[in-house]
């Protein structure tokens, strides 16, 4: 009986698994193979040479540094901000659902559509500099200086805050109210309640949001590309730029080695997510 069910439902899986295998899994095995040979035609085994040469590459190092730097700044920032907004919205405030819609709306709008205003704001002759000039602050050429990173972080937070906020709001709504009631009756202060109850119930969501924000921060290339084109300021040169250059140069070995290193990092991150989520979850169920 169960065997039969297994066979019948396998048919439902077939199209998806075939597709995923052809477009992702099998070629990825080839990617692994490419990363260990000197070139795709000669196929001579070179061990870790490709990895070493990618890692010694100046552009790759720059891309990694920039990507890590961007993630390290933007991810904690966006988590703190979205947690704050979610807690504030959890309180009884006016126009709650309208506020939520407003904060969620940037997520819906294609980045390409709002790039123009970002250019108007942060151009050398743009609005921000105009305002700064009024207060006698010297002009900063935002997109062509280290200020570019700030602009992109700004854009990243603007775009992604809504998503995180929704996740946090759902998690906050799931905190058992009676627990907080009891704590309040025991005259626990807001800070104690926050520290001992709320944060513990939010832990797994915070973790999830961290991972998702990290992944989203790897996608920031999109915003950078639309804002600055193929040749951004040095501090905005991201991993995807490096990969694009490798694609353009048809350098399959480096491309493959780069993709594999990146995927290893991702696997570690996801693994961490699962391990910690299991750990935290068990802690609460007891």
């Amino acid at each position, binding site marked *: 009986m169960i065997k039969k069910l297994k066979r019948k*439902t396998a048919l439902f899986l077939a199209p998806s698994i075939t597709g995923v295998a052809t477009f992702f899994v099998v*070629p990825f095995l080839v990617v692994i193979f490419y990363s260990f040979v000197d070139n795709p035609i000669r196929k001579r085994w070179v061990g870790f040479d490709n990895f070493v040469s990618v890692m010694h590459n100046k552009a790759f190092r720059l891309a990694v540094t920039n990507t890590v730097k961007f993630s390290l700044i933007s991810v904690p920032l966006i988590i703190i901000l979205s947690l704050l907004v979610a807690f504030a919205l959890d309180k009884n*405030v006016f126009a709650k659902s309208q506020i939520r819609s407003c904060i969620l709306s940037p997520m819906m709008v294609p980045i390409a559509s709002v790039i123009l205003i970002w250019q108007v*704001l942060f151009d050398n*002759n743009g609005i921000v500099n105009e305002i700064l000039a009024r207060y006698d602050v010297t002009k900063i050429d935002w997109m062509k200086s280290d200020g570019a990173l700030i602009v992109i972080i700004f854009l990243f937070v603007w775009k992604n805050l809504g998503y995180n906020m929704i996740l946090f709001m759902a998690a906050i709504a799931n905190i058992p109210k009676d627990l907080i009631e009891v704590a309040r009756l025991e005259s626990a202060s807001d800070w104690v309640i926050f520290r001992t109850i709320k944060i513990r119930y939010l832990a797994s969501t915070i973790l999830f949001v961290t991972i998702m924000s990290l992944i989203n921060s790897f996608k920031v290339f999109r915003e950078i*590309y639309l804002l600055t084109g193929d040749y951004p300021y040095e501090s905005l040169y991201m991993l995807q730029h490096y*990969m694009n250059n490798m694609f353009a140069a048809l350098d399959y070995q480096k491309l493959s080695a780069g993709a594999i290193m990146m995927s290893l990092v991702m696997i570690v991150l996801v693994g961490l997510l699962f391990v910690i989520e299991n750990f935290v979850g068990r802690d609460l169920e007891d």
Partner: protein
Amino acid sequence: MRYDRKNRPKKKYRKKKLLSLILITVAILYVIPIIFTICNSFMAESEIAANYGKIFESVTGKGSSRYISETVHLKFIPDMVSFKQYFTVLFNSPDYLLKFWNSVILVIPIVIFQMVIALLASYGFARYRGRLRQIIFFAYIILMLMPYQVTLVPNFFVSEWLGIIDSNWAIWLPGIFSPFAVFLLTKCMRRIPVGIIEAAKIDGAGEFKIFTQICIPLCKSAIASVCILLFIDYWNMVEQPLILLSDSDMHPLSVFLSKINQGEIGIAFAVATIYMIPTLLVFQYGEEYLVEGITYQGGMKG
């Protein structure tokens, strides 16, 4: 605990007002860029040149330079509402319409067929949970989380072997088989009580009938959520066309828009507005589904 009957509610109310004020300010700041873009799309070309000419100086050309004022103004309400830019976009410059059409033709098949494939697969994952299937499902989750830097490389190689690179298929096929929808729909299907399915089975329904008559209708709202999430994601795509389509005539508007300021800045705002209309409409009618979809993603474990 001190509890001042008279004071506390008043203090609470003031706190509420303050908090609301802060949040409303944040909310307004949030929508300003969108409102600004829409408002400016009604500005005539000369007005745009006058206001923002200095920013896009290199492209506005010498002819219009006499209009450019020394300072740049952030203006919301146009001096004169003009629909000429829209007219230009819609009737006089086929380039933009073509790119818009490219976007439609790239996105819609992906959304529809990814849904079909994913619905089937999610039924397969939810109906029977063997060890092998759990492993495959876990692999799907990892694949789903991989950034483009990783997935585009295998996509590129396959497209090259199949000879579909530089054609729409190179975008369609990896999109259609992307595991994102499978993950969310499986989570929904697993919530369907086994009792309902067993009952249908006893009444003589086959697997396919159970799938179409019971599971799909019960997952309606999840299906709507996933469609919205897919649509906004692909409507916004940049990386895939850049790498998989070398012919820029085939690029969707999301990529092409970034190049518009090298030319006709006057109509750029109008094009940008046209490009956001579909997503704003989806948002208008599907916000609840969107929120539900995001919340669904929340718990990673199925």
